[in-house]
């Protein structure tokens, strides 16, 4: 809601100062949006499947057992191919913690969830190009593993 108000005010101020420039800006916005519609629809299709098959309950079931190494690998893969909003992801992390899932595994899951987007790849590709998108996602995955490792060390879960 605040976002609508801010956008409205920004548009109004912009329009008062320079109507022509404002229209130009709106046209740019529309062009960007138009280019994104088809890839975004594909992402929505993928996400709608993911939300059905990868429920919080299922993720909880998979991450609540097994050893640390397998757990971290599984968590980072699940985090990469899943898509869920923060208001589901963090309570889920809380539940995982209560089920004695290690911080290292939770860290691997949340970081890949945020950094790596396999499902959102079509949209990312639309904006960044294929090469940069691949680099960014790969780097994000490696980074998530290192962050998980550091988390495990700090909480004394490994070594």
């Amino acid at each position, binding site marked *: 809601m605040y976002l609508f108000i801010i956008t409205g005010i920004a548009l109004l101020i912009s329009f008062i100062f320079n109507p022509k420039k404002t229209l130009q800006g709106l046209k740019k916005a529309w062009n*960007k949006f138009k280019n994104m519609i088809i890839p975004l629809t594909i992402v929505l299709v993928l996400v709608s499947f993911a939300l059905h098959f990868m429920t919080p309950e299922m993720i909880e079931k998979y991450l609540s057992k097994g050893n640390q190494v397998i757990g971290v690998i599984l968590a980072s893969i699940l985090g990469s191919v899943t898509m869920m909003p923060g208001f589901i992801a963090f309570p889920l992390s809380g539940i995982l913690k209560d089920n004695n899932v290690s911080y290292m595994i939770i860290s691997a899951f949340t970081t890949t969830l945020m950094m790596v987007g396999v499902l*959102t790849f079509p949209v990312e590709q639309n904006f960044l190009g294929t090469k940069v998108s691949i680099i960014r996602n790969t780097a994000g995955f490696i980074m998530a593993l290192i962050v998980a490792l550091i988390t495990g060390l700090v909480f004394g879960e490994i070594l």
Partner: protein
Amino acid sequence: MKKKFFYFAAIFIYLVFISISFVIDFEPGKNIGLNFTEYAISLVKIVPCAFILVGLFEVWVKREVVEKNLGKESGIVGYFWAILLGGVTIGPMIVALPVAQALHKKGASMRVIFTYLGASATCRIPMTIFEATCVGIKFTIVRYAASIPLLIIFAAIYGRVLDNRNYSRLDNTAQEN
């Protein structure tokens, strides 16, 4: 073009699948269809505003300003702004992507872009508060302390390589002007 055709075909098959699911009362199919609309609605609340603001940014903000603060010669200042900007970005990554593209068009370097995208994913302030309450403050602090330096290191390595090659494939919307 081939990709576009493939996308259209996939969307068409999906629509047929969802329609049939509703006709024959196929529960999983119906659920998937509802997920689609639910997610689409959540995006409609944010995405149009984000695009309008990016459009306004593109017409009003001067190239020199972005170049000076976020460009190849910006040094540590560039990382600082990238993380701050990423931290206050709201909404899903779909919002951060057009922002990144707009910044790059105005002369921001690739290492700043990588840092921004990473920060908008991992260091969003509202999200962080929520995370700390759910999982614990220590976890969040450790995650931050590990993520931010790593983010900068990764961005510096990959970004520098792309910057040196003058990589600028960030705009397939180039035809718009």
